[in-house]
């Protein structure tokens, strides 16, 4: 028995195949028109999954490129500012070299004016900002890092944050971007402290924490004399005596020439003899090195001839007298600055007189302070002796060289950061291109294949229609007609 095929079945078959061909034709047409192989998840579920992850990665890399550009822009801006700072320090170094050779005061004033200009320029650089805030305030981007630079005496206060800003790229380590202002303009590379003065105080054995410069104020508080001679402190002794030292460091030599205590001579530390009478209650006696005591000679023992040991107490202060510490005559006495809690270790065993010494903490002065101190030394505001001034100017030169060297280190560090970020940018760009290629391979249609398929389906559809037309014309009814 033959398989019967009816006209309606032929029509139904034609309809089924035409529908199928139209559907495939539509897919091919979409691929040719859009160039995309995946229009919807069902076109290739695995490919769609892959393409979504790839697309996210490409967009992420594009964001990374934007972030890198933004950070690079800031780093470049900072690099220009640091280069200007380096030029500025070079000029300061030249001035520090010129200053010792300049004796003319007007010329020194010109040099000082130039330094004032450099300080103003440094102020501008250190407080430079862009649209994202201050360049050198660390993570405290909205806070001006250095306030009142030109009017501040001593070390400059840093108001920013001591944290480096960072470039954050997910999937990568955070990279250092801009260093904070304190790390750039306030380097600390502590070297042995220096004391300049005549009080006899020396640097102790401990490690200081004070920075920049300080003045050491050595003050006299009380003088007492060994018993037996009958001499005592004069009425101006507390404020007028300049000797300081434990028992026997200083000596009086009394010679009661009258034999009754009524008159005689007295000398301090081998200084010239000074005549006294038993009516003197405040006799000024100057020693061999200019030291001074005030004596009360009203009670000198009759006929006393000989040496009298002196004990003279005093205090130390490094905060302009705000707080004072009694001198212990120890090899390492710690004196604290009440204003910032920093300390100085002093050898006070050899202190012999009151006065003001200059403490310097090389390697700790900030850039602003160095320029200001250089300016002060150029003008010799401390009235130092020529030799002391020359030494001080040498130290200023060393300070300038030190901070310049540090600045070059910073420039180097920032350059390395910039270089790393450049490499990261290149790598990010490469990864993005690779990602785009992968994405394209995943989603793009093979146009040649799609066009061929499109043509094939078009032909097939035409064949189908033609075949159906023929079949429909071969039934008996048509024949009978």
């Amino acid at each position, binding site marked *: 028995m033959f398989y*019967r095929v009816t006209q309606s079945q032929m029509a139904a078959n034609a309809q089924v195949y035409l529908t199928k061909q139209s559907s495939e034709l539509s897919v091919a047409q979409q691929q040719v028109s859009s160039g995309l192989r995946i229009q919807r*998840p069902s076109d290739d579920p695995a490919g769609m*999954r892959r393409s979504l992850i790839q697309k996210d990665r490409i967009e992420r890399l594009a964001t990374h490129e934007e972030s890198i550009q933004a950070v690079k822009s800031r780093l470049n801006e900072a690099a220009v500012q640091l280069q200007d700072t380096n030029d500025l320090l070079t000029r300061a170094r030249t001035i520090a070299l010129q200053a010792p050779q300049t004796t003319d005061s007007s010329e020194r004033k010109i040099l000082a004016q130039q330094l004032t200009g450099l300080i103003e320029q440094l102020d501008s650089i250190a407080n430079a900002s862009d649209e994202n805030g201050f360049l050198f305030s660390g993570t405290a981007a909205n806070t001006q890092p250095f306030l009142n630079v030109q009017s501040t005496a001593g070390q400059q206060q840093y108001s920013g944050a001591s944290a480096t800003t960072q470039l954050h790229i997910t999937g990568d380590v955070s990279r250092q971007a801009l260093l904070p202002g304190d790390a750039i303009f306030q380097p600390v590379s502590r070297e042995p402290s220096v004391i300049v003065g005549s009080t006899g105080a020396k640097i102790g054995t401990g490690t200081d924490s004070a920075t920049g410069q300080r003045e050491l104020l050595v003050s006299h508080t009380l003088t007492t004399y060994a018993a037996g001679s009958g001499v005592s402190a004069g009425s101006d002794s507390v404020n007028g005596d300049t000797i300081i030292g434990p028992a026997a460091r200083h000596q009086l030599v009394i010679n009661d020439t009258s034999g009754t205590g009524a008159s005689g001579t007295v000398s301090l530390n081998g200084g010239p003899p000074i005549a006294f009478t038993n009516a003197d209650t405040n006799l000024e006696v100057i020693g061999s090195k200019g030291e001074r005591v005030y004596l009360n000679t009203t009670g000198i023992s009759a006929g006393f001839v000989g040496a009298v040991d002196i004990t003279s107490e005093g205090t130390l202060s490094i905060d302009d007298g705000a707080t004072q510490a009694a001198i212990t005559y120890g090899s390492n006495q710690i004196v604290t600055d009440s204003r910032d809690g920093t300390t100085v270790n002093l050898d006070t065993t050899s202190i012999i007189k009151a006065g003001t010494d200059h403490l310097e903490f090389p390697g700790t002065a900030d850039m602003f302070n160095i320029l200001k101190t250089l300016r002060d030394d150029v003008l010799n505001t401390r009235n130092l002796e020529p030799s002391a001034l020359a030494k001080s100017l040498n130290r200023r030169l060393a300070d300038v060289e030190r901070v310049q060297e540090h600045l070059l280190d910073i420039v180097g560090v920032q350059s390395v950061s910039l270089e790393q970020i450049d490499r990261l940018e290149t790598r990010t760009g490469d990864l993005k291109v690779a990602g785009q290629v992968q994405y394209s391979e995943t989603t793009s249609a093979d146009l040649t294949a799609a066009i061929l398929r499109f043509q094939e389906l078009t032909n097939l559809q035409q064949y189908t229609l033609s075949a159906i037309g023929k079949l429909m014309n071969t*039934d008996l009814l048509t024949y009978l007609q």
Partner: protein
Amino acid sequence: MKAFDIGLSALTAQQQKLSVLGNNLANASTPGYHRQRVELVNRFPLQNDKLHIGSGVTVKQISRMRSSAIETALLRNTSEMTASQETLAMAKQLESMLNPGDSTVHATLSKFFNRLEKVSNSPQDLTVRQEFLSAASELMDSFNSLTNQMSDLGDDIRQNLDDSVKQVNQLLVDVADLNSRIFQARLTSHEPNDLLDRRDQLMTKLAEYLDVDTRTLEGGEELASVAGGAVIVGATPVAFSVVEDRTGKVGIAAGGLTSSITLHTGKILAMSKMLNETLPEFKDRLRELSRTIVQSVDQQHAQGMSSQGPYSVLLGTRGVSEVTLPLARSSPEFPIRSGDLYITVSEDATGNRRTEKITIDSATDSLNDVATKLSALNGVLATVDPVRKTLLISAGGPYSIDFAGRPDNTPDVSLMTGTSKPTFGGLYTGDTNNRWTVTFSGPGEIGVTDGLVATVKDSLGQIIAAKDVGKGYSPGSSFEVHDGVSLSLGSGTIVVADSISVAVVATPDETGLLSAMGINSLFSGSEPGLFQVRSELRQHPERLASSITGKPGEAFNVVAMAGLRDIRLPNLGGRTFIEEMADLTSQSGLVVQAADSQTTQLQAFQTQLEGDRSSVSGVDVSQEMLEMMQTQRAYQAAARFLSTADQMLAELFQLAR
């Protein structure tokens, strides 16, 4: 005259056959029509003497050309194919919702994290922050939109299901009516072919909705049943209704019952499966994805600080079901585990901060208990809103609070009698919460004593750092201890037994309480579909908790939030957020592909079966035309026979005349 009778029988039979052929031709393209055939038989012969002479022809019956096997297979395949087509249509809707576009979750999720990364590199830029917050809003909008679309799809399918059941009930009424008419017809006549065809067509229609089974009984009667034989399709219609069980799963029940019957094929099964299995799976995964994003981001956000520093008040935006129930049973939006919660209390005037810790046991502690524990800390006041059942944490007096977990700058010195003042700094980069202890090699003076060594040990007693803080160490200068934490020791003395203790915190909130209660969260809202960016942040982008130090240019908390992008989470099947969304999308494609493949296969089988049925039951016009010509010839022959018989009779009459 037998001849006239015989001729008449032939004319009558051929006329009836012509009618049937005409009916066949008329229904040549009628769907479900079975061609009919006239069965002619010779009538009983008449006995004449010893001869049996035929008495003509008669129509025995008009039968439908029908193969039960093919019809049964076709009915089953129709049901399966319709189910598959319905599944395909629904899956395509689902797929179109998940098809990636410019504002779909795929794009907004990517944008959210990209904008977050931009904030991490320009945290001080309010415009960048605003862009991020807009991206966060877009992300929530896209999630909410997709969730709503899926709910709408569920509603549409449910409406279609209701309509389909109504349709089924109407079909069953129609079939029952036809069954009655067929029964009546069979009592009085032969097979009512057209009624049977009509019933077959209705059964085919019914099979589109349910699985239909037909069996031929002895005697040729057909017994039809639906839903795996659960309901017999007889002369009395049974009504179906849509029912829901306690878990919300829908089904259909028959005859007013409430328990659903098991379906095997058909549109209704496809819709039920979509409503009970496929759609909930997608909705659940989407819900879990949005919840996980919100929970993870909120948890990290809560552990940071805005550029304005620590907070005076932190108001929770999420609540619990009952403030006195243990947290594990009080239905917070996100689970709360047992663990430690570290809170940092800063003194506004000095900036000195100390880290306090409370331990939460979620199995026993209620929200009220947590508030009590927090309030017991100096400088912290926590209250529970009895109406909203939310938590409010505020700083008491001259203090501020945060959950950033920075090391205490003023550590615990209760075991220190020397005069040196320790200060911690930096940010802890370790992975675990710990408590470090600093001890000294002997008595001495910081910065002075030779060989005075400070040793730092962790809570297990392991040495993690050692530093000579004697001669050569500048008092007050800071040195790195370990994992980003630095220490400075002020000038002063150290007594041999002195020790310093500090908490280093990697995870300030081990419990998840902060996100669960919406404390300093990025998002508000208590369930997917309602999540949105907290309005306070939209109005004040500077309050975004971008840092852990409160500095505008520091963005470690944003970096941590951005880092969530790459974390593979167990509740997302070990996938990242993007991978989960991509997986969900590809899953929709797989559902479509599976349904499409099945539909194509069943369609091909359907075409084949329809061809087979057409081969048996279809009307071939050529064949019918040949039959018609044959019938016409037979009719002409019978008429000729009658004419001849009439002539013979006339001849006979002529003889008699």
